[in-house]
């Protein structure tokens, strides 16, 4: 196989757009300031930027946008009532702007603690490694943030906003790492994307994951979503898919992977996507003793009925929903229709892929007219149960409280 180096101008182009030079510098412990200066010194020609209107054209009208700069959006729970998330309903969360990249020009570089640096075009990746498809959960760390009291800063994801489970197509990260050969002290892998900021000083978006997760057979370098190319907003041409973990681990517009001996030190690792090591009193600031966010705790949502629906009291109602957990598996789902006094076991569909959500159903026979609320509660294989109120944390991450949907039961 031909692992040609990208030409010089292309290299400068990548260095310029996202400070590709910054990764080595930062990974090898130079200061952020030096790295930024280095990135800024490279000839900068930014990629085209995809306007928000073009992104929205690929989404259903039900998508709610929480901000435009950077763009973020999600659909409510009842818009997830599909086996897997259709592309036009997959949530949007950018840190910077949306680059318009060329699939033929993009090169993926592997470097750092590897036996040999490798560079692949997308076509080369597709030819050189086994291609896999799997459904996998991605959820923004701040999904459900608006449920926290007091309110934490950040994207105001609604009670169930900011998660999706589409079908991904790509190659296994572990196969690609094996081709480069990992050195004995390689313990983390950092992904860097080509999304540019509004200004040249914008820090590049770089996140690292521990080697065990990088070597998981479900961690992919993906180019496909639901059988088609990734949409530009979701990382075209290439992205990482680190299923079950906070969405920011799944670097979009991926162009560089660096094997490191320690977690990457940069603002998206140490300033954001962190939680206190020990829970703090609600309203307190982030303590110095904090940890980077990784796998989501067990969680579930009701996808049917929709809130405030009117349902006939004479008919059985099939309550449907999804349950998932970042690592492990969902073991049971319970439904309550009396505000949590009694719980009833729902039927869980077979798990299709390890990191996919599982559909649950519960047949409910109305016992009276009037307003009824359904509560959903998942339990994982380690006995973890969704709490009534998750631990508060300053950046509002990991909300996995109970989803509650109210409907009206009316005479036929």
């Amino acid at each position: 196989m031909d692992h040609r180096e990208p030409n010089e101008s292309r290299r400068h182009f990548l260095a310029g757009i996202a400070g590709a030079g910054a990764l080595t510098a930062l990974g090898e412990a130079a200061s952020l300031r030096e790295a930024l200066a280095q990135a800024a010194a490279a000839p900068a020609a930014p990629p085209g930027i995809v306007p928000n209107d073009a992104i929205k054209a690929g989404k259903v009208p039900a998508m709610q946008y929480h901000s435009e700069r950077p763009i973020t959006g999600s659909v409510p729970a009842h818009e997830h009532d599909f086996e897997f998330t259709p592309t036009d309903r997959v949530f949007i969360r950018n840190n910077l702007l949306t680059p318009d990249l060329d699939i033929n020009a993009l090169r993926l570089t592997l470097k750092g603690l590897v036996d040999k640096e490798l560079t692949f075009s997308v076509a080369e990746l597709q030819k050189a490694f086994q291609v896999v498809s799997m459904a996998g959960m991605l959820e923004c760390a701040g999904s459900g943030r608006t449920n926290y009291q007091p309110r934490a800063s950040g994207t105001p994801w609604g009670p169930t906003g900011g998660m999706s489970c589409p079908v991904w197509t790509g190659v296994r990260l572990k196969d690609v790492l094996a081709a480069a050969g990992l050195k004995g002290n390689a313990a983390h892998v950092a992904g860097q994307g080509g999304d540019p900021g509004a200004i040249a000083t914008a820090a590049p978006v770089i996140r690292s994951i521990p080697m065990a997760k990088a070597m998981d057979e479900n961690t992919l370098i993906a180019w496909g979503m639901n059988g088609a190319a990734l949409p530009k907003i979701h990382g075209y041409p290439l992205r990482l898919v680190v299923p079950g973990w906070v969405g920011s681990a799944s670097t979009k517009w991926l162009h560089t992977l660096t094997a490191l001996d320690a977690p990457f030190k940069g603002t998206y690792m140490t300033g954001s996507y962190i939680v206190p090591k020990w829970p703090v009193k609600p309203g307190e600031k982030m303590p110095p003793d904090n940890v980077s966010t990784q796998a989501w705790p067990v969680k579930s949502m009701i996808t049917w009925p929709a809130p405030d629906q009117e349902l006939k009291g004479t008919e059985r109602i099939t309550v449907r929903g999804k349950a998932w957990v970042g690592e492990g598996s969902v073991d049971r789902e319970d439904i309550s229709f009396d505000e949590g006094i009694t719980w009833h076991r729902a039927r869980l569909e077979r798990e299709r892929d390890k990191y996919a959500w599982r559909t649950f159903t519960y047949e409910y026979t109305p016992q009276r007219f009037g307003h009824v609320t359904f509560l959903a509660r998942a339990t994982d294989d380690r006995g973890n149960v969704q709490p009534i109120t998750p631990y508060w944390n300053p950046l509002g991450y990991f909300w996995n409280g109970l989803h509650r949907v109210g409907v009206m039961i009316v005479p036929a």
Partner: protein
Amino acid sequence: MSRPEAIRAAALAAALCCGGAFAQDERLISGPGSTLTENKCKICHELQHIRRAQLSPGEWADNLRNMKERGTPMTDEEMRVILEYLAVYFNRENPAPAPSADTLAAGGDDPVQKLLNANACNGCHAVDKRIVGPSFREVAAKYAGDRDAPARLVTKIRGGGQGVWGAVPMPPNPALPEAELQRIAAWVLDQK
């Protein structure tokens, strides 16, 4: 600018700026430091990100440090002013005081400085140094001796652009009235 470049600049300007949908997003509650806060924060994100956050002063300090790490060009003194403003007007623990004059806005009653502040020009430009974009002095020098300079600069401020001074695009200012555009352009060209 070639045609593809022009298209790219226009798309970027649209992605950056936003137009009418954000007209209501232009200002924060007026108070000491509000203008500087608007100028710095608007470079990368909408002001609604601030408006909907009610944080403790300690959390604002963390938040500002994080924004500086992410690349916001601001000095320690500017950070101090912004923190003081946010901790007073967007504080979870105390209700915001009534709006008051931004006594810290550069230029005070100077009509041109008011325009530069109100349109966030000062977030990216200063008279004699580069922040994000070129200094006003550099702009004036570039147009020196050009008879059409005022009209060309008006077009530039209204439409934004990219590529002349570097890759970072300048967002357009389509809502600025012609008279105000001319006033700003004349002042900038005077900064030789």
